[in-house]
């Protein structure tokens, strides 16, 4: 795998992890809302 391939791989990884991060953030907001308004 050349450097270009590794850059692509890093970019795809960053997108996946950022997506997971934002999903967890939205989950955090939803759970906090549920905890506040039973």
């Amino acid at each position, binding site marked *: *795998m050349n450097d270009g391939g590794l850059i692509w791989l*890093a970019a795809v990884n960053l997108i996946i*992890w950022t997506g997971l991060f934002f999903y967890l953030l939205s989950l955090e907001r939803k759970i906090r809302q549920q905890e506040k308004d039973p």
Partner: protein
Amino acid sequence: MAEGQYGDAHPVAVAANRHSSQTVQPIGIRLDVKNALRWLLWLWICGVIWAALLVAPVSAGFAGLDGYSPQSSRIVYFHVPMAVASFFGFLAGAWWSAVYLWKRRPEADLASVAAIEVSLLFCVLATVTGAVWSRVQWGAYWNWDPRQTSIALAMVFYAAYLTLRGAIEDPETRARISSSYAVLGFIVAPFLYFIMPRMASFSLHPKPGGAEMEASIGLVVVAGIIGFTALFFWMQNLRCRALAIEERLEQEMLE
């Protein structure tokens, strides 16, 4: 200024009254420490990805079979941290189970099941990344290597825990029996992760300290372990709170 120096209708008095009737709000950005830590975690993991794929060197000890790229060994930066985070998670699950058995606090039981569920997820991810790497390094996805066998046993042990929980309806009995099972994790997890693989005379996995690695490789692996463990505890916290909400809603429906 003396009180009543100006009449109530005087602009200075009006302004002073308006000011005193309002709640004084501090000026500036309200710092949410937990949120700041989450963003820091995101930056940390991005840093680990960047270092793992673009900065850290490829170890000569992980060359790969003929025809495969030695770059595949970069999977170590994800495989090892996930396995270590799952180990910490199983230990945390055992700890919370012990707390439940000791103090009978239902939230400790929820924390325990959340830890074991998320750990199992990390364990599966470690196994899958390991299997992909195994195909590249050793020619097959599964070789019954001592470490592969022991992690498979760990998954069976904790899958049985979830099955056990699912089989008991009464919440208190479920919490008591499943906590008694999960507390065994204090012995089972270290045995399966560290002792059993070392008991075998032959392993395809490198012995601890046996692989020739540059210091920077170890540094990125440690950074990955810190990042994935923090991610684990965030996910465990979310799962635990979601379980508490589920339980509360079930209670409300029954009432």
